[in-house]
């Protein structure tokens, strides 16, 4: 991955597609994110707790999935400090199996260009189910 900005507003017209990426999440990734973010809700590390409240098992932090959706954009843009807005809805849980983990695939395309501002809309899919609502990431390349 390059450190320099790789995309300019002129190059990326509306409809430009981002390369699809798939992230394999394991229980260790959830524990690492729990420590980094301070979100120690047991739904992200205890199967017994998760199933007791009606989940199929341990689920990923919605904020982790969101951050990975934003990363799909910053990887493409090149400079992560250009992000001004990001928003999403947490629609379905990402169930992370204790041994097999989970694969989340991110796809996206430029949905708007206004001057130096690009809006990219990202979709996140796990097991053929959209796990986030459309995730909007707005970057200022000016």
């Amino acid at each position, binding site marked *: *991955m390059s*450190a320099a900005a790789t995309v300019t507003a002129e190059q990326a017209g509306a409809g430009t597609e981002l390369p699809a990426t798939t*992230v394999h999440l394991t229980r260790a*990734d959830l524990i*690492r*994110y729990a*420590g*980094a*973010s*301070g*979100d120690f809700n047991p739904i992200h590390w205890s199967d017994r707790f998760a199933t007791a*409240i009606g989940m199929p098992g341990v689920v990923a932090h*919605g*904020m*982790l999935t*969101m*951050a*990975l959706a*934003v*990363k799909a954009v*910053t*990887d493409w843009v090149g*400079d*992560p*400090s250009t*992000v*001004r*807005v*990001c*928003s*999403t*809805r*947490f629609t379905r849980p990402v169930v992370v199996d204790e041994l097999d983990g989970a694969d989340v695939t991110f796809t996206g395309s430029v949905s708007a260009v206004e001057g130096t501002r690009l809006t990219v809309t990202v979709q996140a899919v796990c097991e053929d189910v959209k796990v986030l*609502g459309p995730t909007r*990431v707005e970057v200022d390349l000016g």
Partner: protein
Amino acid sequence: MSISPDHVGRRYPPTDVYVVSQAKVGEFARALGDDHPAYRGPRACAPPTFPIVVAAQAWEQMFHDPDLGLALERVVHGEQSFESRRALMVGDEVTATLTIERVRTRGSADWITSVAEIGTLEGEDVSRVRATFVHSHPHQEEESR
């Protein structure tokens, strides 16, 4: 007490000062599997969703506000947005100030939207972290216990 639209506008005192450190930015980026060089070193910027770390400290005030009667085991994170004037940077000294922006009842749940305003000690607004939490009402059998 339970949460209602009457609580819209409730504002909590600023959190304790949070100093953005190189170590924490690096730890957060690694947790995302992100090895971007912008997240390394004494002049690193923080990942775009990093302000959640600061906002979460402000959420604690709301979650534990006895007037709202929130039951944490019935709260899930429904929606999230960040509007930032710039990325947080290593060395920033910031606080988060939380306001309850909206309360709606839909079916058997309350939808609570909060905004954490993250600003530096010098008074610079950096980020607005808006979170909507879905607080499910207890089941009938729980209430009758």
